């Protein structure tokens, strides 16, 4: 069903958006302290529209807040990549690059979708992903081709995160773009960045999976607890 596919997408965007927002006030420099919450806003804004639309299509009366704040980790359907803890700046930038490069390709396929809202979200998000790619790719290159220490950390990020990329290309709902078909273009987009960053593209990596079935890492529960506690403790709170 379309609404289920949109819920998966919304979960990806909310979880990564929340992760990025965790950098607010902690980023290594002022520019990044502005940049990361801005990236988070793009993702959370997209998530809101998707949650709202998924809830309406489902027809069970669930609002965007119900879907974001009142579901447990076990029913979140985000891919594992987006829930990975921020780690150091190299981890965060690589995670962003992996996801944004995927979503740009994905939204391009959704630009002529039959659903008005999906088309509208795609039209906005495809441009925003271009900025996210540019920003994170510049950092991956700067760190990978930087000092011995920054290069070591960038390689560590690749080792830690590449195994979570395969899940993005698993088959999904037929009402939405075919994710399987995007893998070749995704690799073609990122390999030149890796080359410029002096990083080896990992081959034969065993890919982790489970997020789309609700099997998540421990970190997602902690993240959701922080994100949801206010709404759960004070339902409908506004300020």
């Amino acid at each position, binding site marked *: 069903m379309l609404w289920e596919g949109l819920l998966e997408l919304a979960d990806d965007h909310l979880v990564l958006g929340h992760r990025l927002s965790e950098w607010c006030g902690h980023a290594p420099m002022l520019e990044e302290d502005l940049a990361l919450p801005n990236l988070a806003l793009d993702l*959370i*804004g997209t998530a809101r529209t998707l949650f709202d639309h998924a809830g309406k299509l489902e027809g069970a009366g669930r609002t965007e807040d119900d879907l974001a704040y009142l579901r447990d980790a076990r029913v979140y359907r985000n891919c594992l990549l987006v829930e990975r803890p921020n780690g150091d700046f190299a981890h965060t930038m690589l995670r962003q690059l992996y996801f944004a490069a995927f979503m740009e390709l994905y939204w391009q396929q959704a630009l002529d979708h039959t659903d008005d809202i999906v088309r509208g979200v795609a039209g906005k998000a495809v441009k925003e992903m271009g900025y996210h790619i540019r920003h994170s*790719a510049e950092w991956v290159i700067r760190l990978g081709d930087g000092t011995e220490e920054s290069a070591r950390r960038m390689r560590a990020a690749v080792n830690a995160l590449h195994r979570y990329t395969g899940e993005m290309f698993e088959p999904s709902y037929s009402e939405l773009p075919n994710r399987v078909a995007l893998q070749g273009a995704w690799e073609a987009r990122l390999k030149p960045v890796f080359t410029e960053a002096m990083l080896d593209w990992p081959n034969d990596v065993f890919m982790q999976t489970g997020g789309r079935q609700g099997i998540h890492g421990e970190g997602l529960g902690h993240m959701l607890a922080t994100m949801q506690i206010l709404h759960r403790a004070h339902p409908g709170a506004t300020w």
Partner: protein
Amino acid sequence: MVEVLDLDQARAWAAAAAVPDPEVPCVTVADLGILRWVRVEDGVATAGVAPTYSGCPAVLAIELAVETALRDAGFDARTERILTPAWTTDWITDAGREKLRAYGIAPPASGGKGSLFDSPVVACPQCGSDDTAKISEFGSTACKAQYQCRSCAEPFDYFKCI
């Protein structure tokens, strides 16, 4: 896009169009192309508002301000959020671009589509020099990047092209 059918419609449009953008108050919602249309039916004025960025925190403030302006002009007021087609900086009017420049914000390059590592030529809004450098892709708001002029050394906001 602008539909003016009668006097009421024109009055409603004028009221809504005069609303300043909350984050960039030197331009109005009409200058930015965020206000797409205003329709009046049975005393109810409905304004179509297109958000700039997906996560633009100003969207709610803009919708509220437009509704208030329409109410002050004597209409029952509603807004409708327009997602398709997606807002683009190409919808910023020439007058809007001029106001941005005068305010010290470099207006977006028109018709451009950012790709990996290609940077637009951004002229300094203070001295007009093209010799400028990007300091940060993200500035004071989601829609702006930070630049600095190499000729007059002045830092400034650039309204990003999307």
